[in-house]
């Protein structure tokens, strides 16, 4: 009956509209009818009452409804002031309005703007419209649009999405999107479904998943709240005061619930006493004597007894109050069975997460180890093979890094510049090493302590020289674009490509070292000279030349390491000094004179440092401190390192 009257009314209005101006050709098109049936609410445009109108449009599911929602959201819906008919409008020249049909979107013509009123949905309503639109987008023909709709749901899920999402899974043809939809559907089920059994099933369905969004969905479910009562209700978990709950917190809860009087804190005690000072006395006690907590409490008690202050709450009062009540936790995020299922799932995730974190930590340790190995491998040659202490080794690393920086100033292409920088850094530091060997070190081969001192002098001078040339601020050494980003295994395990590159470089260095030392003429001569220089020279080897080349080789490798370390960290004049102690530690821990020892030493130092950092994540300085202490203790047990040379070579 009502509907019929409404129809007639619409027809009448329509006639009026037709007479006045150009209007919708099909005024009784289903979409117009639908809009008119909620006309009053739409025109009122209030967030509180608009819900049924949007729901009705969404429920109709027609393409027209989608267009209406979209253009409404874009503030392109107008209605005629007299007839109330809805149209799409676009402002044209001369205060006119270009009109389009709500059904089908065909052009109707133009009309003066003053006859129409624009619908201006506020942001709240636009949000509701957007939520309603999601269901249309979920079924859109274009897969990209569907993916965008899923992104929107993942970002900001709502109860209303669940039904729309479920409805859209069936018709989905794209397999990837279908899998994604199913996954999101289960996540939404966990969060919003009414039925407990359904939610529990969804939670169980996720077993083995470690993703962040699942944890984000589960965590609110297991939220608990501390409650207090005289008796313990059923299925609540008791919290024991003094064990899981501190006395002060428990008492604070009692105070908050008005179950106990607030404790007299020193501040109020003090203020009360000050308020009650009469002349030189408080309650008959000299002010000057109130310089201990006990004296103050005694006077306060007197004040309280005479009614001039709140009664003093003693420790005994607190204990008594706490004994009268029982503290327990209740789940606030979800009904108990769901919360328990979520808790079990989270426990499961945590266990798996711990495993993943261990793997991630090991990877971190490995990449730190490869950095230490890179820094130390040059030393393994100069110190390990030749027995020369080069304290300027860190400065050779720095020189390599600055060479990379200078190359990048001239060659803007990052890939090319790095490829150029590596041989150049080797050349520069090789030259520096040879010069240092010729000028300084060769005079001091039999005085190791003096070598240490002289190279300290060189190190100080080089560091200051770099400061004078390049300034004190850090200089960037930019990695090529293809080294950006990281290799992701799952939400926990990830390793950046630059670290992988450093690891690979370390392995290449190891291979180069082994090849040069064991397979080349130079390596043979180096080994001969280090074992017995006089015998070597009587075999026709020139020890001077060999020493020079070996030292240059070790220094050159330090230069390449500098380029790699510069990519990973900033280039400063002090970067070498940061690595020198760790590098020597690496070589000493590993065992002098053995490259495998250096490798083991770097692995030990790197993984241990990461391990200590994991125990105390806020503090990398402390990790380094403990690392060094560990090394000092380690040398107690293996003074010659992990792999110790035996026999005569060890004595040399």
């Amino acid at each position: 009956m009502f509907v019929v009257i409404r129809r007639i009314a619409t027809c009448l209005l329509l006639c009026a509209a037709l007479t006045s101006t150009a209007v919708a050709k099909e005024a009784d098109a289903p979409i117009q009818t639908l809009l008119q049936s909620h006309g009053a609410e739409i025109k009122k445009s209030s967030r509180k009452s608009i819900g049924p109108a949007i729901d009705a449009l969404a429920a109709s599911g027609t393409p027209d409804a989608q267009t209406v929602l979209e253009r409404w959201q874009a503030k392109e819906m107008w209605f005629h002031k007299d007839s109330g008919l809805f149209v799409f409008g676009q402002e044209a020249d001369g205060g006119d309005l270009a009109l389009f049909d709500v059904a089908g979107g065909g052009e109707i013509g133009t009309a003066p703007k003053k006859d129409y009123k624009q619908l201006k949905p506020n942001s709240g309503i636009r949000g509701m419209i957007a939520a309603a639109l999601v269901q249309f987008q979920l079924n859109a023909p274009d897969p990209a649009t569907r993916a965008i709709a899923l992104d929107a749901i993942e970002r900001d899920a709502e109860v209303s999405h669940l039904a729309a999402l479920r409805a859209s899974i069936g018709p989905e043809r794209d397999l990837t999107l279908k899998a994604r939809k199913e996954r999101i559907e289960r996540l939404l089920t966990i969060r919003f479904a009414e039925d407990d059994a359904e939610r529990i099933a969804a939670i169980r369905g996720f077993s083995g998943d470690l993703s962040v969004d699942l944890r984000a969905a589960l965590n609110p479910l297991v939220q608990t709240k501390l409650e207090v009562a005289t008796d313990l209700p059923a299925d609540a978990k008791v919290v024991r005061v003094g064990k899981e709950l501190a006395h002060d917190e428990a008492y604070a809860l009692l105070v908050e619930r008005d179950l106990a009087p607030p404790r007299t804190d020193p501040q109020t005690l003090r203020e009360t006493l000050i308020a009650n000072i009469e002349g030189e006395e408080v309650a008959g006690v000299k002010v000057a004597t109130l310089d201990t907590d006990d004296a103050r409490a005694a006077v306060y008690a007197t004040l309280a007894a005479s009614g001039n202050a709140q009664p003093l709450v003693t420790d005994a009062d607190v204990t008594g109050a706490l004994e009268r009540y029982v503290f327990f936790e209740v789940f606030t995020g979800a009904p108990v069975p769901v919360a328990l299922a979520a808790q079990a799932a989270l426990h499961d995730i945590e266990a798996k997460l711990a495993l993943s974190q261990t793997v991630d930590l090991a990877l971190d340790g490995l990449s730190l180890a490869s950095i230490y190995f890179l820094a130390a491998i040059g030393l393994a040659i100069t110190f390990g093979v030749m027995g020369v202490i080069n304290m300027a080794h860190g400065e050779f690393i720095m020189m390599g890094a600055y060479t990379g920086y200078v190359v990048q100033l001239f060659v803007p292409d990052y890939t090319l510049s790095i490829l150029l920088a590596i041989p150049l850094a080797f050349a520069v530091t090789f030259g520096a090493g040879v010069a240092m060997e010729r000028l300084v070190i060769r005079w001091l081969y039999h005085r190791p302590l003096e070598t240490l001192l002289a190279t300290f002098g060189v190190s100080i001078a080089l560091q200051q020289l770099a400061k004078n040339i390049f300034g004190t601020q850090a200089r960037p050494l930019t990695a090529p674009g293809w080294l950006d980003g990281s290799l992701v295994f799952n939400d926990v395990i990830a390793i950046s490509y630059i670290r992988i590159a450093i690891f690979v470089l370390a392995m290449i260095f190891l291979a180069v070292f082994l090849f040069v030392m064991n397979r080349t003429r130079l390596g043979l001569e180096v080994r001969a000279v280090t074992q017995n220089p006089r015998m070597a020279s009587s075999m026709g080897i020139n020890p001077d030349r060999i020493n020079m080349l070996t030292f240059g080789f070790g220094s050159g490798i330090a230069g390449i390491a500098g380029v790699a370390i510069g990519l990973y960290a900033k280039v400063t004049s002090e970067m070498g000094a940061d690595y020198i102690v760790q590098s020597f530690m690496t070589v000493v821990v590993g065992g002098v004179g053995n490259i495998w020892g250096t490798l083991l030493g770097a692995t030990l130092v790197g993984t241990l440092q990461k391990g200590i950092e994991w125990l105390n994540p806020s503090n990398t300085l402390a990790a380094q401190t403990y690392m060094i202490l560990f090394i000092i203790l380690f040398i107690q047990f293996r003074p010659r390192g992990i792999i110790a040379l035996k026999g005569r070579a060890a004595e040399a």
Partner: protein
Amino acid sequence: MAAIALSASRRSFVMRYPSVVIFIGVLALFTLGVTILAEGFGIGVISTSFVKTLGKTLCLCLVALAMDLVWGYCGILSLGHMAFFGIGGYAIGMWLMYARTEIIVRESLAAAPLPPTPQEISDGIAGQIFGVVGASEFPPIWAFAHSLPLQLAAVVLVPGLIALVFGWLAFRSRVTGVYLSILTQAMTLALSLYLFQNDSGLRGNNGLSGLQNLPGLSDVPQSTISILFFWASALALGLGYVICAWMVSGKFGSVIRAIRDDEARVRFLGYSVEAYKLFIFTFTAVIAGIAGALYYPQAGIINPAEIAPIASIYLAVWVAIGGRGRLYGAVIGAAFVSLLSTWFTGGQAPDINLGFYTVQWVDWWTILLGLSFVAVTLFAPRGIGGLFDLISERRHPDRNGASLGPDPGALREKEADQ
């Protein structure tokens, strides 16, 4: 022959080592001269800040003396003695900071209507001192900061204990030579990294400051305090010199020099090399701690950067340039290089215009120092002190009446003199 040997040993320590007398005389004259010229009690020709610089230099000479004893005489190139120096400074700095803050807090609380409780005073001091690192409670390490005697004991005991434990661990596992140097450097690095943290309990990289203000002596002008500290530093240096000279003069000195020259041989002769080394290492650490405790009240501020390994390396540089293995060499090196450093880095040295480039000494001094250090190591291992040999070698050596040759019946010194 026995009589001659006996008479030689009966000759007084001073007579046998005239350099000690000369050194003490020069030091006394220097102290007197500075006192007359300073503002505190004299005519005020040299400024208070320069008196402080001189006083600090004396402390650096003292720590250089310790370095010379451990390195020049015993052959242990320790790169940790500036860390002991810094620990001494921290130990005295804790008391200075606590006591001075306590006076300020007591004054501010005295204005309150109620007399303060001990807890309130303690909270007030802690809030003042640790506000910069976001803490408001005293860490356990400050348990004795209220007591001057206990902190003075810490100046001696903490460096001594650290050196004892570290030295025991290192020497017993026969870590020697460059390995020991690297290990001590690592220890120094660990200590400075530890102190750099905010929760180390020693105010992180802010360090301790305001140490030049002595608690209870706020009416005494800095010019007087500076000269008092100068005297204390001179006295400590003089005492330290005499004690070190006495130590290296006798049999003990011979043993530690022998350890430097050939450790294995000394061990085979039945000496407990480790005990000797441990004693020297610990003893010099204590001297370094005392020197630091005198230095930092004059410097006014101490922070972990002062403990960083580079400081200990510079200490080795001073001793090497001055000439190791002779006590006055260490003192000359420390005084010469540190005063020259102050002059160059203070911007007082005139720039050198080369036409195309102006050498600014603030930037280039470190390079000059590094290179001259290399040059000294290569060409003049005896350092500045070696210059004195040019004089003393002109006189023929005093062999205390012993034979001139190893064979029985060789010419005796007295006979040769005739």
